[in-house]
Each structure stands twice: as C-alpha cells, then as structure tokens.
C-alpha cells in the first residue's frame, strides 16, 4: 500500500489540476524550443550543413555571407595556407523560379562537386554533377521533377532532395559552380567574372588555428570557424536570445508552481505527517512520499505536454519544417524533474523539523 499514490488517487481533482497547469508550462517550453530551433535551422541550415570546418569571407563582408564578394582565384590562395587540406567555392544568390508549391523566391547555392562547400543533409537521391541538375530543399519537389528558373530561363532536373539545408527560410537549390555561373550571366551578361561568396575549407588541424593562419596570410579576407559563421548570421543571435528568455521564464514559473504547491500541501498535511512520525514512520520515508508525488505529477504533465506539442506541431504547418526531437523531450522532462525535486526540498525541510511528540498533545 503506497501512501503517495493512494493520496493522489483520492485527491484526483487537486493533483489533476496541478498536473494540468504544469503540462501547459512544459508544453510551452517544448513548443517554443521546437519553434526556435526550426526557425534558426531554416535560416542557418545551408551554412551549418556545408561540408567544411572553416569559412572565408571577404574582409568587407561584415560577417555576412550574402554581403561577401571574392574573386574565385582566392580559393587557390586559401588552398596554399598551411593546415588547409582542400578548399572550394561557395556562391549564393536569390532568384525567381516557378516553384511547385506556388511560391517564387528561390535561394541558389553553387558549389564545386567533390570540394569543400558541397551541402550535406541529403535525404534522397544524389547531389548534382553537371549543369543540368539540381538538389532541392523545399518547394514541394520530388526526384525527377523539373525546376524552372524563370529569371535565368532554365529547366533543371531534380536529382536530389535535402533536409535542413535551407537558407533564410526560403526554398533552396544546390547547383554546380558551372551552372551557377550560367545563372549569373543569364541576368548579367557583362560581368567580367562570376564572384564567389565564400571559400569553404577542410583542415587537418584545429579550425581555430587554421582561421588564424588564413587571416595572417590571405589579404582582403576574413576567416571564421563554421560555428562562428553560423551564429553570426543576421538575426540568429536575437532569435536564440528572445526564445531563450521565454523558455527560461516558463521553466522557472513551472518549477515555482510545483515547489509552492507541494509546500502548501505539506503544510496542510502537517498533522498527518506528525501522526505518522509518532507511530514510527521515519523522516526519509515521508520525504519519499513527497518526492514520489512530484515525480508522478511531472511525468503525467510531461506526457500530456508531449501530446499537446505533437498536435500543435502537426496543426501548425507554417512552411518551415518543424519537428519535435526526442532529445529535446528527454532533456526537458529530465530538467523539470530534477528542478522540481529540488523545489520539493522546501517541503522536505518542513517535514524534517517535525517533533513527533506534538502528535500526543490534545491538538
């Protein structure tokens, strides 16, 4: 016969309301985190997924890939730097296309097949190998479809599909550097050369060391580790921070609610706890009653919250790919559980101060 669970069974309304309130807070934490991750991924996915550990922009780019313009010859200079094992170009532009899902904005990335700078995150098919092929993330395409670039007046065959490889939350097409040049010249026939945006670098040493080496030896460029480059993408820092504050506050409110609820419950039950101490229940045993009830409430609330989040993620198909990660659920539930149990120490401290003799007094 378990005291903790029997009490919960007898007071379904009380514990149910608490679990309901906590589940809404856990739901908010899960949803906000999922959305912010999805949002950040859709902005940064292309850069995060680049097959390289170091990126090189032009010195005037102010840390912004799209503002960076480099002569393709820089690839060769970067490749000479000590510690660099391979280097390849990354080029990107926005153009218009007649996308299958009805939208028109398309982000295009050019890369040199087989060199750093190629995308990762292929979910189906393969990467393009010649100037007639494209790999897509977004826009509603399947393998074998035709992508129509309206501005450049080109028809391309979709040979691969990528996931988590979008940039600026726009459908993104990956093409060879050759085809990229043709797209640029189709709209600007007079350009003297087709500039690239960045050099992607593979290195056999610590990326930070390579960054320093490139900065010292290649004039007019600025190198970044890929992680730095990703977090410097405009908007990412403020999105992460804003969502971080919301998630943190919600989390803290949840813990405070649980802590105070159980403290109130413990104070209300003081007479019962005193009686139990008097008839031979140890403090540890009573502390376990509180801990078990907290764990039960948190687990029940988490289960409800996961269901709510799944429904919300499904119902809320907003264009950017959103999915609830099991690691996030596990981490959130574990964190709520640990901190709730810590908040439960408020109650346990009260229990530990009980003088069992009080039970003998005439109230």
């Amino acid at each position, binding site marked *: 016969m378990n005291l903790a669970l029997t009490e919960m069974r007898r007071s379904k309304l009380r514990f149910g309301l608490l679990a309901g309130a906590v589940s809404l807070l856990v739901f908010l934490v899960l949803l906000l985190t999922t959305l912010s991750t999805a949002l950040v991924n859709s902005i940064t996915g292309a850069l995060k997924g680049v097959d390289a550990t170091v990126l090189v922009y032009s010195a005037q780019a102010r840390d912004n890939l799209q503002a960076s313009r480099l002569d393709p010859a820089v690839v060769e200079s970067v490749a000479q730097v000590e510690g660099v094992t391979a280097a390849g170009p990354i080029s990107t532009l926005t153009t218009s296309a007649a996308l299958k899902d009805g939208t028109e904005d398309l982000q295009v990335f050019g890369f040199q097949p087989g060199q750093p700078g190629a995308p990762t995150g292929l979910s189906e098919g393969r990467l393009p190998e010649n100037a007639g092929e494209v790999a897509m993330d977004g826009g509603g395409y399947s393998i074998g479809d035709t992508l129509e670039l309206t501005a450049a007046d080109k028809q391309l065959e979709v040979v691969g599909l990528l996931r988590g490889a979008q940039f600026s939350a726009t459908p993104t097409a990956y093409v060879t550097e050759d085809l990229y040049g043709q797209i640029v010249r189709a709209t600007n026939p007079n350009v003297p050369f087709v500039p690239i945006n960045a050099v992607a670098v593979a290195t056999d040493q610590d990326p930070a060391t390579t960054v320093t080496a490139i900065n010292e030896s290649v004039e007019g460029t600025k190198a970044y580790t890929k992680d730095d480059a990703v977090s410097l993408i405009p908007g990412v820092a403020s999105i992460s921070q804003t969502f971080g504050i919301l998630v943190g506050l919600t989390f803290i409110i949840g813990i405070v609610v649980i802590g105070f609820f159980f403290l109130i419950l413990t104070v209300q039950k003081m007479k*019962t706890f005193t009686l139990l101490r008097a008839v031979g229940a140890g403090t540890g045993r009573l502390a376990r009653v509180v801990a078990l009830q907290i764990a039960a409430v948190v687990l029940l609330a988490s289960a409800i919250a996961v269901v709510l989040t799944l429904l919300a993620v499904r119902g809320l198909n907003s264009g950017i790919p959103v999915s609830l990660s099991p690691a996030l659920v596990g981490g959130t539930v574990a964190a709520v559980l640990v901190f709730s149990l810590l908040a439960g120490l408020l109650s346990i401290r009260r229990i530990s101060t009980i003088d069992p003799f009080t*039970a*003998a007094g005439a109230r």
Partner: protein
Amino acid sequence: MNDDFVPAHPQEPGLDPAQEAKAHADAILKVEDVSKIYRSGDTEVHAVSSATMAVDQGEFVALLGPSGSGKTTLISMIGGLLSPTTGSITLAGTDVASLSKRELTAFRAERVGFVFQAANLVPFLTARENLLYVSTLQKRISRKDAHARADQLLEELGLAARAKNVPEQLSGGERQRVAIGRALMNDPDLILVDEPTAALDTKLGRQVVELLAREIKQRGKTGIMVTHDLRMVEYTDRVFEILDGHLTHVEQPSALAH
C-alpha cells in the same frame, strides 16, 4: 482543571507506586525515578517528577489524574516520543532512553501501539488502509499476514462493514475503534491509550474502553490507559493516580468504585 474529574476517595488509602514497584520485580515495563522538565525561555514546568512504576506483562492499567497533571507527558516518555529529563524507562529489556532518534522511530513502529488524544487517523486512507499502512513500517509481519490481521482486527472491533470508509465518513466512536485497531496492528509489546473517551458520550465511551480491555486481555498485551474519568477505570487491573506530576498512589479499581 476539568469539571468532570472526580477525586478518588478509596476506603483504604492506596499503596505508594515506588514501594509497590518493588513487588513487580519481573515487570515488562519499568519506569524508574523519571522526571520531565519543560523549559521555555527562563520558565520551567515540572510536568512529571520522580515517577516510578512497574507494569506486568498482560496487565491493563489506568493512569488517572486531572488535566495538566502530566499524564500525556508520562506515557509519551514511556512510548519513546519524548525523552525524560532524568530517570530510566525499560520495556522488555530495552532501555528506551538510550535509543537513538532512528532507533526510537523503529521502537515506536514495532514495540508500541498508540491511541492519541486528538488526531489519530490519516484522513485520505480508509479504515483498512490506516491499519495496513502502519504494518509497512515494520518487518516482522509479512504483507500477506498483515492483510489477514487487518481484516480480523476490523471484524473484532465491529468495523468490517466500514473498512472501506475514510475517517470523515466514520462516527467518533468508529474512528476511535479504528485507532485502537491501528495501535494493535503491529503486535506491539505495549499499548498506550490517551483519553480514548474524551470525544465520546458515556455510553459509547464505556463500549470503546470495554472493547479495548477485551482486545488487550485476549491478546495478552500490556496496556496503559490515560483518563481523568473515574467511571472508566473498572475495566482495568490497577489504577495509578497522578497529581501535579507526582504519582501518588496505586489503587484497585474496586476501591475506587462509586
């Protein structure tokens, strides 16, 4: 002071408890020269002073005295709820005063059955669960035996039909009987009962005490019942009188009959 306390007027003056204790050399419970002083700030309350008494195995005795005379204080020390300021208490060879906090907790769970003056039951457990829960605090009685024992006790106490009710659905007398069942549940050496009839009318009070006496006798237990009601002592073997913290006499219940 309590209005319904009737001072005892025995035909013959009773014995001195300390003298009489010598005649009970192999008593299961020995209280020797026990005192309790409550200190709060610089005031001292001498709640129990130099109490000496001995109770034999199988005896059911009463502790009779007016309100504030130290009855609850004395039985709390005997039951390991309160440590004496001086003196020694021995229950079946265990020196209660020498036990650690943790050992006292186990002592209360396994060796003593309490029926307190006020709150006695866990409000969110049924009558049967109130009995079963205390059995989880000890190791001698197996879980299976505990279920059978709880059912048997409830039956004997006339509570079989109320086993599934929570305390607020029970009458005062029924609650008191559940508390008696709870006290007997772990097969303790000693049953300590504090004013079992305080909240009951005389008729119901008598029934509860009679039942208590029967259970204690049937099971060969040792019991101490605190009361300030002279009418309740007829079910006991001996009566210890306490006044202002001093155990004054031991009487035969018949000597106190009115």
